[in-house]
């Protein structure tokens, strides 16, 4: 009966819907324009466009940019902060650094809560958790009354050293709740019980300002879906690459920031694993930017250092993604000293590349692709026409003439610089972590990823490029595949030799108890819950820590310490076996496994498909007559030797000369890139 799984990914421009029938493994997709003023409308439109009856839906998962956008546009309800006397400016002082080191006219954004709405109370806890000044309840009550009068809807309670003792914060929360019935309160010891005041406060403040908005949105959407017949829980994708239910969203709304971006990385992992690659680099290239993600040995890279706006860290584990300002719309330009540059300025959708003829008059990567014939002049099944003449003209005028090149050479130069910039970004993501890109597959998606994938792979000596079936809606696929996931942690600062195993075990048990409770409240069965303990460690005196997995029954810490040395060696190219090691945090990752859908599968039958047409496309050695194929006509087992162009509704795949492209059983295109040695 109810055998449908629906995933909705709301992006800036489009809302993508992916529907999977678990019985038949049939998928269908819909792409509708996003409705930023009320994202819910596009979701319901998209569900309708996909022809889904919500009564038949078993699981509905959703990736949303609503939290990220709210932080960027700062559309918050009235919010306030209550903090320890003397410290209301911690979130304005930040760490003091500026994003742009040299431009004195570029400012870091102001804090999410204005100074006048940050009130102080007398209280103080020391580093060890001792209360050296009790909470002044009279003052606390006066503050609560003032905030009540101001009509604030949500409050962040952020006290110094509350990670070591949360009593004063909890009492403050009680008083606020008594004085302002129904108020949303986020305490820093609940949101993120971790040392370092700015990072903890910043995360808590972001959580507080988002709570009313995000939980309101989730409630409304949940109700709308229920009204139309959906009986399950709405599952929301969070930055850590798992989902959570509306109940958890209310407590940890900041985890929804970064939701949308994580989806692409998850899909990249899935697609790579489908065809047996446990190491993959995701290249999600759109109109103005490219998101690069990395999967190593089947695991996504997770970071705790990220932000939506510079200066305001959100210290929840987040899938690590590097976003660079390189996309189809990035401008190619020549600077005053004669160097050919690419981006970061972009023509975006408005005025757009010159070939759109929507006002753009500067060469972009898209124009270079059109000039070379790599991109055709009809997109989206003819709903959009590109003007090749305009593209050629701007490339000639602004690149070829100043550099004294032929127009084709100029267009190739534009793409080479763009690809080299992206390759540098991939190197930053991989090499700096001790990974060699040659051991990875490149998963190319987003509208423009498959256009550049093969060239980029060659630049990086990556042997394999994978193009998913619907490159433009890959993020929605990511939403469909996720498990419920929570990350819990507690500080445990102690040198390894002073650590007590019974203490550590008790701390882990407490975290696991909490994790099971959360899972149970989200309806995850005990047998579907898996818990992983981790200890994060560092060399005494070091500032960053590394987490290593540990077993539940720790006989000693020796093995964990050994693993720490090893991991340090791999990530940072050295280890110090003779240096003292310090434990920093104990962490538990809780995964509530949801059943993975079976995606469509075709029995592969080797064949050489026939091109429906051909056109001249310029590659490294000049123009070549190149076969054109329609993606939807390519079946499992198809093999094409480049040059070839594979077109589909939302993307174009370029198969350069000598590259073999095969369609596998999951209808993925897999390109084998000749490396330096084999060419």
């Amino acid at each position, binding site marked *: 009966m109810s055998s449908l799984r629906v995933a909705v990914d709301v992006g800036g421009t489009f809302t993508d819907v992916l529907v999977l029938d678990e019985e038949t493994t049939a998928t269908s997709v819909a792409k509708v324009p996003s409705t930023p003023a009320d994202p819910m409308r596009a979701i319901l439109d998209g569900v309708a466009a996909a022809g889904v009856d919500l009564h038949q839906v078993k699981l509905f998962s959703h990736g949303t940019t609503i939290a990220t956008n709210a932080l960027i546009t700062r559309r918050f309800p009235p919010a306030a902060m209550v903090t320890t006397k*003397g*410290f209301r*400016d911690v979130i*304005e*002082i*930040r*760490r*003091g*650094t*500026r994003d742009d*080191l*040299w*431009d*004195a*006219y570029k*400012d*870091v954004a102001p804090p999410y809560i*204005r*100074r*006048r709405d940050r009130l102080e109370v007398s209280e*103080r806890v020391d*580093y060890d958790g001792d209360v050296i000044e009790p909470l002044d309840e009279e003052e606390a009550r006066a503050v609560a009354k003032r905030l009540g*009068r*101001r009509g604030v809807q949500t409050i962040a309670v952020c006290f110094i*050293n509350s*990670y070591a003792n949360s009593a004063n914060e909890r009492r403050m929360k009680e008083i606020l709740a008594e004085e302002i019935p129904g108020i949303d309160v986020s305490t820093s010891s609940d949101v993120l019980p971790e*040392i*370092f005041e*700015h990072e903890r406060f910043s995360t808590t403040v972001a959580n507080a300002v988002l709570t009313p908005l995000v939980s309101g949105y989730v409630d409304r959407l949940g109700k709308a879906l229920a009204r139309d017949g959906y009986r399950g829980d709405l599952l929301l994708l969070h930055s850590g690459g798992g989902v959570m239910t509306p109940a958890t969203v209310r407590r940890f709304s900041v985890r929804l920031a970064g939701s949308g971006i994580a989806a692409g990385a998850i899909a990249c992992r899935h697609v790579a694993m489908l065809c047996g690659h446990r190491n993959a680099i995701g290249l999600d290239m759109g109109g103005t930017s490219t998101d690069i993600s990395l999967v190593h040995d089947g695991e996504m890279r997770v970071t705790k250092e990220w932000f939506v706006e510079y200066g305001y860290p959100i210290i929840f584990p987040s899938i690590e993604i590097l976003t660079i300002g390189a996309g189809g719309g990035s401008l190619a*330009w*020549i*600077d*005053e*000293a*004669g*160097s050919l540059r*690419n981006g970061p300025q972009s023509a975006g959708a408005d005025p757009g590349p010159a070939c759109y003829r929507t006002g753009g008059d500067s060469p972009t990567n898209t124009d270079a692709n059109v000039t070379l014939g790599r991109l055709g002049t009809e997109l989206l099944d003819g709903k959009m026409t590109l003007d090749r003449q305009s593209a050629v003209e701007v490339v000639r*005028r*602004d690149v070829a003439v*100043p*550099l004294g*090149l032929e127009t084709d050479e100029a267009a190739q*130069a534009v793409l*080479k*610089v763009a690809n*080299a*910039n992206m390759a*540098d970004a991939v*190197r*930053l993501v991989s*090499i*700096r972590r001790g990974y060699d890109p040659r051991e990875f597959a490149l998963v190319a998606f987003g509208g423009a990823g498959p256009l550049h994938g093969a060239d980029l792979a060659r630049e990086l000596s990556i042997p394999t490029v994978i193009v998913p079936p619907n490159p433009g809606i890959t993020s929605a696929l990511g939403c469909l595949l996720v498990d419920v996931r929570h990350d819990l942690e507690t500080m445990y600062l102690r040198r390894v030799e002073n650590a007590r195993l019974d203490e550590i075990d008790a701390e882990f048990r407490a975290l696991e108890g909490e994790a099971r409770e959360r899972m149970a409240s989200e309806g995850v069965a005990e047998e579907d819950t898996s818990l992983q303990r981790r200890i994060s460690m560092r*060399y005494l*005196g*070091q*500032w*960053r820590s590394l987490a290593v997995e540990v077993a539940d029954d720790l006989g000693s810490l020796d093995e964990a310490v050994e693993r720490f040395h090893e991991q340090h060696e791999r990530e*940072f*190219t*050295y280890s110090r076996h003779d240096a003292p090691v310090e434990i920093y945090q104990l962490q538990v990752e809780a995964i509530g496994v949801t059943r993975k859908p079976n995606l469509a599968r075709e029995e592969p039958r080797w064949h050489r498909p026939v091109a429906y047409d051909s056109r001249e496309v310029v590659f490294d050695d000049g123009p070549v007559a190149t076969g054109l194929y329609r993606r939807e006509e390519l079946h499992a087992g198809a093999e094409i030797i480049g040059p070839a162009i594979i077109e589909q509704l939302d993307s174009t795949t370029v198969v350069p000369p000598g590259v073999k492209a095969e369609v596998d059983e999951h209808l993925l295109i897999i390109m084998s890139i000749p490396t330096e040695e084999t060419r």
Partner: protein
Amino acid sequence: MSQPTIERDERLDPVTFEVLKNAFTTSVDLMAEQILRTCHSFVIYARDFSSALCDRDGNTIMQGSQDIAVHVGTLHYKAQAVIAQFGEDIHEGDVFLINDPYLGGTHFNDVSVIRPIFTGGEIIAYSQSNGHWADMGGTVPGSFDVNAKEHFGEGIRIPPTRVFDRGRYLRDVARMILSNTRAPDSTEGDLQAQAEATRVCEREIHRLVGKYGKDIVLTAFEAVQDYVERLTRHRITQLPNGTWETEDHIDFDPNEGEGLVPIKIKLTIHDDHLHYDLSGSHPAVGTFLNSCFGASTSGVMAGTKTFFPDIPLNSGFYRAIEVDLGELGTVVNAPWPVAVTGYCSGPYEKIMNGIFELWSRIMPERAMAASFNLEYLLVGGRDARVADNPYFMWYDWMVGGWGARNGKDGSNCSSPVFGVGLAVQPLEGQERLAPVVTTGHHIVTDSAGPGRFRGGVGVEKGGRLTQARSAVMSYCCDRARAVTWGIDGGLPSIPHGAWLNPGTSDERFLGAVFSNVPVKEGDVFTRPSAGGGGLGDPLEREPRAVCEDVADGYVSLERARRDYGVVLRVVDADMDEYEVDQAATHAERERIGAERRGWLEEEPEGVAARYRSGELDVHDLVRQYGVIVEWGDGTLLPRTTAKFREMLARRAARHWH
């Protein structure tokens, strides 16, 4: 976007050039990544480091895109010092150390680790990682001895020294250096982290050589420098020729008693190059607030670069800028063995801010008044919370306000111009490591210099000592007297300086430079950072903006009236609601406009007496009367006051209607 008169490098095709240029940037940024993740020193972790790829002659090909400003323009000197010292005796796998300010370094704490990069038995480049080690030994923890007159005793000086010999770690040499520091083990961690970082860069360069060939890469090393030089000269050509001069000050020279110490800067633009002349600056002072040629050159380069934020940094930039530091022996051109460790709070800040002022006239669209002064406070002693009373260092620096800008207020609470990547430390971390409870870390009301656009606000941070034994406090700052100034009619902010036991009968003002002041359990210390100076006449500031500042507590009701002539009515203090009393504001502004020039001529001793009696406060003295006193006891500083008033006349009063 193309320019009609483009010149480009013909030696490389445009793609290869652009690709290699960006790859060089990546290679140094990878070094920064590596350092940030593996360093031990909290100072390095706070981004007090830099990385460079230098060519085989030591010239800088590329410097890290997130590097601290204060190292700009010094890394090639250090590489060249290594080359000069070792010449032919440099081998694959060697690594060298150098921190010598008399050979072009900055101060002892900035230690460079330099590795030659070989291809086919030949040196093609050097990779360099420069980081601030937390302690270099010497008489004062952190190696900042304010009273040092010569470098002996400040810490360990490292001339070019080999520390890896063909890949073999010379442990004896390393221990010889590290044993002179207070934390040899973690400092060794930094040395190794830096050495590894230079290897990361080496690996990248080897990859590029493998892909493009040695000749192309060598050509690109030159072409990238030529490119930056061409770009810089092209920009300069578009500016008018001319000469601009200014003067900024260090508070005093103990050799001469009270009186501001001038640093003179003259800039000449001639066609496609810049010429800076710092001659005529005061002789080296009797504290450690002096700088050698490397650091002073860095101040000039970094100050200039602020007005060309998008130009990449390498020796090509330095080639378009000529720097004449004037005669040897001045505060900006100190010879061996003059103590220079405090250069960063002394001449460096003055050179940068002076250059900001000059360029504010040349590029008014990027104008900026003076910013707060870099400051380091250090409390060191024994931690009696722990059994064996280990050594502790509470080593702290703060953000402050930046100068007001053309069309907008200055940045609030920002890292110093000396290095805007320099991150302040988390007090929760500090409280674990030292017996000091932080008493507050907050914005200081009225710290911003008033102006039509006000400066950014400064902050205050202090602490109370708990179980500390044998503790001493030192402070490295400046501008307790040469108060952070405004331009174009804007007013100064507030003096720097540290206070002991404020508000008690034991209250003492310790000034902005001191070292080894004994402190004990129960003592409370604090210090503000200045805000930025104002830009434009404060009486022309939009009253609404003043009202908003009062609601946020950036400006007090009282100072809104005194500094801006804006009179506000309190609508509801509980709700932070205020409104402008238009009529009263108009009248107040008329009155101030008529009287303010007279205030600047009032007899200084009388003004000082009114300060001592509590009738006037520090803001009144600095902003309205231009009178500088010993802030603790109110003793008038007559020579300082005369110079300060001269400065106010030039930067402020002259621009008022």
